[in-house]
């Protein structure tokens, strides 16, 4: 269903028309290479290249970064990114490969970066020519983000960085990283600072990127080791010791609760053609209709039907929450719904993929390397990958704390 009914400003109406027209004429069509379920799973350079070309084209057409200022390579418009996103979703385009750049790095650099640096970095970020990654997690700092051990030491007017980051998706393709690290051991929170650091150009010169293998057998995220990496002071974001504050900007945008709407494309079916994605409950109906579960059609099994409908209701509820979040007068607390998005979406996707096992029955034992696997084994793969998301970016246990504390006003649990 479209939200188009929401009143557009003249600028927005004109822009909406532009997006729809351009997409009608410039949809990239079906990919020549296999495109994984999400950008974080990208490992084939050919797939990346094709997606980068798509992001660049959309950028050149003004559909990416519309709400960023022109001097930073943006469109200099107001509240137009959401319109571009809608148009791209409706046009079922591919997703953008520079997902961490657009969703986390861009707003952070935009609001906290030093002049000159912003202008230098954001254009190629928005165009997708330069891929970004995020250096937050460490072996000892998972959900406890403030427990950073990577250390940046000031030497003259440069910083020397040593440390060890893990679970850094896309680092093997990245030109830049947003880095949270420690500049003082005296204070847990105020001892943190925030930098952007070069990766690709510094490989072998203070930066080592090693792939980590996921439980699925896929690569896609990495560990990054810094040994005396030298970074100019201009790449520091905000004040020394303000790293935690800056990180909050990053996380707010990651949780869909930021000031700027993240440029996001998508809707195009990857993998199996012409069917709903593995993260849609509708997809389970298609699956159930073709799955001979334990000998009987799964779509005829009442227990399966009830379970699918429960997920469809959760999914529709999520969609309608997004709609309501856009109407201030219909939400008691401005962050109440936005802060639910990550938690609700990731658990819903996990449950959708898990139900697929019971729908597929015995065939759920088959993996992507088996020609007979239902839908190429995408569901078990999606189920395992779903834990990457319920764990990452503040495990969902932490998300519930955040909601209980910030929205409900309950006391901190530590």
């Amino acid at each position, binding site marked *: *269903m*479209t*939200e*188009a*009914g*929401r009143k557009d400003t003249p600028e927005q109406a004109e822009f909406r028309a532009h997006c729809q027209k351009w997409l009608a004429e410039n949809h990239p069509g079906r990919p020549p290479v296999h495109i994984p379920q999400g950008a974080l799973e990208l490992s084939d350079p050919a797939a990346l290249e094709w997606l980068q070309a798509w992001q660049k084209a959309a950028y050149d057409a003004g559909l990416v970064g519309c709400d960023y200022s022109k001097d930073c390579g943006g469109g200099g418009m107001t509240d137009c990114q959401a319109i571009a996103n809608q148009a791209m979703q409706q046009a079922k385009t591919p997703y953008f490969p520079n997902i961490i750049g657009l969703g986390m790095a861009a707003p952070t650099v935009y609001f906290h970066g030093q002049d000159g640096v912003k202008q230098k970095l954001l254009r190629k970020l928005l165009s997708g020519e330069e891929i970004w990654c995020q250096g937050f997690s460490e072996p000892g700092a998972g959900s406890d983000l403030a427990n950073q051990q990577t250390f940046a030491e000031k030497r003259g007017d440069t910083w020397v960085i040593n440390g060890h980051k893990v679970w850094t998706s896309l680092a093997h393709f990245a030109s830049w990283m947003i880095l949270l690290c420690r500049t003082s051991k005296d204070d847990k929170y105020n001892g943190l600072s925030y930098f952007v650091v070069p990766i690709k150009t510094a490989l072998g010169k203070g930066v080592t990127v090693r792939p980590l293998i996921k439980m699925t057998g896929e690569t896609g995220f990495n560990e990054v080791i810094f040994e005396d990496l030298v970074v100019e002071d201009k790449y520091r974001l905000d004040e020394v010791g303000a790293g935690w504050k800056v990180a909050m900007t990053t996380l707010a945008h990651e949780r869909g609760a930021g000031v700027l709407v993240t440029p996001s494309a998508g809707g195009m079916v990857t993998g199996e053609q012409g069917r709903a994605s593995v993260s849609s409950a509708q997809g389970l*109906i298609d699956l*159930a*209709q073709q799955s001979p579960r334990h000998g009987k*059609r799964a*779509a*005829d*099994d*009442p227990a399966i*039907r*009830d379970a*699918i*409908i*429960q997920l*469809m*209701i*959760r999914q*529709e*509820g*999520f969609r*309608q*929450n997004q*709609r*309501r979040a*856009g*109407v201030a*007068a*219909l939400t008691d607390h401005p962050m*109440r*719904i936005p802060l*639910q998005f990550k*938690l*609700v979406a990731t658990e819903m996707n996990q449950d959708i993929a898990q139900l697929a096992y019971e729908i597929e029955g015995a065939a759920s034992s088959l993996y992507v390397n088996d020609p007979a696997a239902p839908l190429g084994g995408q569901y078990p793969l999606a189920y395992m990958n779903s834990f990457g998301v319920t764990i990452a970016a503040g495990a969902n*246990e932490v998300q*519930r*704390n955040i*909601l*209980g*504390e910030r*929205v*409900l*006003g*309950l*006391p*901190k*649990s530590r």
Partner: protein
Amino acid sequence: MARSGNFGFGDDEMMLRDSARKFFADHCSADKVHALVAHDANIHRDIGSNWDKALWQQITGLGWTAICVPESAGGVGMPVVAAVAIAEEAGKAAFPSPLIATFNATFVLRECGTDAATRALANIASGSSATLAMTNAKGSWEASDTDVRFGNEKLNGTAWYVQDAQKADSIIVSAVSADGIGLYLVDPTARGVEIIPDGIIDLTRDQAHISFKDVDAMELAPPGAGDEAIRRAMPAILCMVSADMVGAGEWLLQTTVEYARTRVQFDRPLGFFQAVKHPLVNVMLEVDRAKSLTYSAACAIDEDPGQALREARMAKSAASDMAVFSASRAVQFHGGIGFTWECFVHIYFKRQMHNHVLYGDGKYQRTKLADLIVGEAA
């Protein structure tokens, strides 16, 4: 089909919502409701109906029951979301009244398309209340199931599970004859009408079965048209009950959160413990889901009717499950206090449990949805 981003909550609807919120805060606080409906704890108490008729008359005076009556019948002709806004506030206040019953009657009457129905709507617009008598002894919510027969211009039989029957000024009866289901308007005081109140758990409403013996009745929808009118009204009816549960769920959430902030155990406020905090967050997630689905369904009734039933059943399913969960966690986390009669929580607990089965619980809605969405099972 295009939908309003704001679910059709325009300025008028927002104003109405705000004034309802203020009205209930001023006149229907939880302690007032408790004093009104819970003065007699005796489990074997006489069956009665506790409500503040004067307060109800203020509300009809404010015209709230006229909002969804078409302008052609002297009403305001607002969209269903307007009634949802009021029903939600009424649920938050556990307001004892024929409000929901009258709204539901309104939605059925709107689908009858007869002059008699228009006159009945006009009465509602001018402050009279009404309720639906459409359920059989088996508690079926199917529009085609009724134990009342119409013949020789008379109604005979019994209607069951009639909501707030003792408060309603008129009764809309679904009755079957050779030509199918028709709808009829009955005056509760008419000869042959006997209202037998049920002993129910919910303290904030009444329920009855009504026996009809050779009762004169005015036809609202002719035989064969009545069940269809009920079917077309069902999405709105489901939205009303869902909105009531959403409001009560929000009250239970906020009241329990407040208690968890202040009650200290183990030298910590209860809310410090994730065993309390996280379930309360889950209650919030379920309340928000049910609320958004209810708004969307109500919006669909006016803007995308083809989707309305499907969305309304989703809303009722989510709201029913939320109702049970919000009620159970509220009692659990209030501890011993929440288990007592003096505590206000049980009033909402009982209202939620009543509403969650009304017009079908979550499982019932999902069975219907599976037939709608997945298709009939082979």
